[in-house]
């Protein structure tokens, strides 16, 4: 078994710790860093609730080995807030009732955040495609898609969807 020292940025703060090489980023975040806003669902990359942004891109933190994070930038849901102020996506989820049990919400919002950065005014179809890998077993997705579109705000029409 290999143990190694890694340092990375978590929501803008530098973290340095020693981890066994076989630990996943998910467990580093939850168990070593106390970032329990990152949820463990399936543990095999399917459900999307453990989504974090790694150098800006959404990844399944359950499918990243800890050594891979050395020197990189990790953002969890908490990293989108400014102090106590919620991010506009979080506000939109609240306003649209897009969370029921809330377990999928961190992954949904981070995935939506990455989508809106790449495509600030997505169509409904863009949103559905972007969150296709994030499973919600409560709301049925309609309110989640509504919330993401509301957070994006009106933009230039694209393909009429």
């Amino acid at each position: 078994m290999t143990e190694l020292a890694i340092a990375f940025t978590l929501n803008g703060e530098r973290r340095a710790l020693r981890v066994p090489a076989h630990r996943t980023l998910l467990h580093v975040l939850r168990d070593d860093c106390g970032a329990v806003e990152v949820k463990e669902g399936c543990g095999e990359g399917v459900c999307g609730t453990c989504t974090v942004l790694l150098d800006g891109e959404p990844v399944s933190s359950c499918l990243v080995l800890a050594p891979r994070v050395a020197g990189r930038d990790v953002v969890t849901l908490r990293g989108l807030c400014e102090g106590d102020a919620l991010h506009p996506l979080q506000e939109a989820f609240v306003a649209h009732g897009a969370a029921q049990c809330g377990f999928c919400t961190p992954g949904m919002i981070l995935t939506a955040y990455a989508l809106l950065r790449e495509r600030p005014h997505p169509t409904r179809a863009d949103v559905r495609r972007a969150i296709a890998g994030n499973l919600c077993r409560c709301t049925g997705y309609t309110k989640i898609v509504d919330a993401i579109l509301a957070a994006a705000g009106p933009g230039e029409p694209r393909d009429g969807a």
Partner: protein
Amino acid sequence: MPAVPFDYHAPATLAEAVSLLGSLGEDAKPLAGGQSLLPLLTLRLVRPRAVVDLHRLDELRAVRRDGGTLEVGALVRHRALERGEGPLVLCPLLQEAAALIGNVRVRALGTIGGSLAHADPAAELPAAVRALDGTILVQGAAGARAIPAEEFFAGLLTTALRPDELLTAVRLPLPGPRTGHAVEEFSRRAGDFAIVAAFAVVQLDAAGRVAAARVALAGCGPTPRRLDAVERALVGLAPSEEEIRRVVAHRPLEIEPDSDVHASAAYRRHLAGVLTVRALARAAAGARAFGP
């Protein structure tokens, strides 16, 4: 569940990685994007003594155009393929195939080399590379080899790679003029592996007749399959959808689908015919759009 502990190596050069694999033998697993290996580790379906992490091997990230061929490094990610970054835009079939892989998170980390070496029979990229007549480049202690995709996929999750060899790149002939492509996939839910997927490339001559056609199927046997009889029968025809349907209906589909929890062999065979026609018809339409 956490993976069973293993020794972790992150070699800095390809030579070092190959020599490590040579000395560790079957006890070691190379790690590329980790989107297949990590689930296998955490479900404890594999328990290697050592993991050789390839992420420092920047030499495997290159994409090069060399005359009529494109060489795609093993560590190029699905997202780069999907977005058609740099010279990858020259290979639209790869772009369309990559967009269908898993979910956006899998595509952010998964690599072309990892997918090819894992050789899942329902995966997109092995069948796409078969349809493109690709060549797999590998490096071992004994030297480098170039293996045609046809010989590379040897069986279920099994390739021609030896334990001390690493897949370094895939070489793809670039499409010529009047060439169209298409991928038609059926899966039950977004992000699922394909039940069946068809990957087609059609090149027309100046008169609008088929100069060459290639079609490969995923999900129809232990390895991706090419439909040789259909491909040969299409040459010289004006490829309307009716004509393609007639050819596919009257030629044997050289596939051996299995029944499993996802679909029966008979249903897979049915899908194979339908998706092959759709993919060839769309590829032919794309080729016609180039004009004479």
